[in-house]
């Protein structure tokens, strides 16, 4: 008598664990982007734009260029130009996944410029590069550091900085400026987020996994 109950309850308990462990169509990234960002300054040392490069994963890359005319290992330039244009048109609705703040206050960004798609035959990966101008150039002095986060709120796409030279400074005057990248502890994020972060799309799941690039200029604040 006892053993049957035990077997029943133990099996049921383990089944429950197996069942609950599989989260309801849990959101997880399907597209992986490696990112590089150049911070571009104007002559007065203010941040005026971000030149962002996204290198797509092999799966997405193959998907994006599938059926495109190709000669000598290079895809048709017209096709790639059209691809960049179309991608940026779609991304505009999402503000290119960018979130810029200065001293914690949101900074408005404009329409993407100079979009460019390139194909790397050796790695089989597609890249998209575009310039995201700030509507009002920002001076990143002590106390008003500029924070940049680029992420897909739905976390369908994960965007991570490359390990080798993830950021650079470009353009006019940027002496004394530096960018620090804060990467969230991914394991910690996965294990500590509440259930609702995964089930409610309004919760912008992707924000939890987003790296923050912080631009600081001038003397260090003590």
């Amino acid at each position, binding site marked *: *008598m006892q053993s*049957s*109950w035990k*077997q*029943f309850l133990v*099996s*049921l308990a*383990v*089944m*429950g*664990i*197996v*069942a*609950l*462990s*599989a*989260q*309801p*169509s*849990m959101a*997880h*990234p399907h*597209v*992986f982007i490696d990112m590089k960002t150049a911070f571009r300054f104007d002559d007065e040392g203010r941040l005026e734009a971000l030149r962002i490069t996204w290198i797509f*994963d*092999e*799966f*997405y890359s*193959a*998907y*994006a260029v*599938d*059926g495109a005319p190709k000669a000598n290992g290079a895809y048709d330039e017209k096709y790639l130009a059209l691809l960049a244009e179309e*991608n940026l048109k*779609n*991304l505009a*609705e*999402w503000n290119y996944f960018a979130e810029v703040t200065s001293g914690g206050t949101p900074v408005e960004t404009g329409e993407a410029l100079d979009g460019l798609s390139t194909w790397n035959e050796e790695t*089989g990966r597609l890249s998209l590069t575009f310039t995201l101008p700030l509507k009002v150039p920002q001076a990143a002095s002590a106390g008003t550091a500029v924070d940049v986060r680029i992420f*897909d709120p*739905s976390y*369908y*796409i994960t965007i991570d900085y490359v390990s080798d030279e993830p950021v650079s400074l470009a353009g006019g005057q940027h002496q004394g400026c530096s960018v620090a990248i804060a990467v969230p502890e*991914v*394991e910690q994020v*996965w*294990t*500590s*987020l*509440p*259930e*609702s972060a*995964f*089930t*409610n799309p309004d919760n912008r799941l992707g924000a939890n996994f987003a790296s923050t690039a912080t631009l600081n200029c001038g003397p260090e604040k003590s």
Partner: protein
Amino acid sequence: MKRIAPAALLLALTICAFGSVAWAQHALPIPGGSPAEAPGMFSGIMRYIMAMQQDYYRSMAGALRAVNLQGSLAAAWTLASLSFLYGIFHAAGPGHGKVVVASYILADEREVRRGILVAFLSALAQAITAITAVGLLSLALGLTHRATAGAVPYIERASFALIACLGAWLIWRAVRGGLEHGHPHGHHHDHGHEHAHLPTPAELKKAKGFKEMAAMILSVGLRPCSGAVLVLLFAVTQGAFLIGAASALIMSLGTAITVSVLAVLTVFSKNAALRIARRMDSPWAARIEPILMAGGGAIILLFGVLLFAGTFTGPASPLL
């Protein structure tokens, strides 16, 4: 008799357990939204493991390219290991017939060995469907990546419709069986005991259950494994369909292991529940088998209908 209570509790527990599997596999809208609660430690860790499957997935692309370009044994070994591991974790996510396999076992299966067989055959069938679908559409018909991926929901829809039919069939069988069983006996005499000890002739049971088993494998197997489809589509773009097919088959071994675990647990808990029921002296306990069959059938039917309805909405992303 007071014994009705434990029997009813048992049934409720079993059906709840399956309901939760069904729920966990398919996000049903929760009225009022879910409260913000910290996850249990276990579900948090499982989530992280699930996230790790994406790393395997991503690495498979590079591994497949390496096998294709270098053709080295080391590269092949890497791809095989990645495919296998990805399969194990991938199957823990939605799909792969876990709910249907478990509910089917609840309804109509008692042997551990057959439970495992069902799990492996369904996984293999899902891989074969993926290979056939991508092979036919992408390779033979020359459809693009996009068009092939776009055709998959139609194949899935057929699978879901079959799943719903299987559920309806099981319910019908249970009701018919329950009626045949219930009528000739008077309600005043204690038939639960004597009947429960009668062994069902194994051969008869097997011959009878074979149709359902085949129907189950067919309906589940018609839904291509989503992981396999992605790898195969990628393989086609690399001109390496056969490498992709090999990867898909190895992946199905991994998914079969995960589904088997659930299948074995289901067989264990069902058999234990049946043993307990046999010792109970209540009319409910005597009818436990048709009730389980109807319950399992109802879950399969509901699940099939939900999945079928779910194929008409899809996620939107600016890059796709």
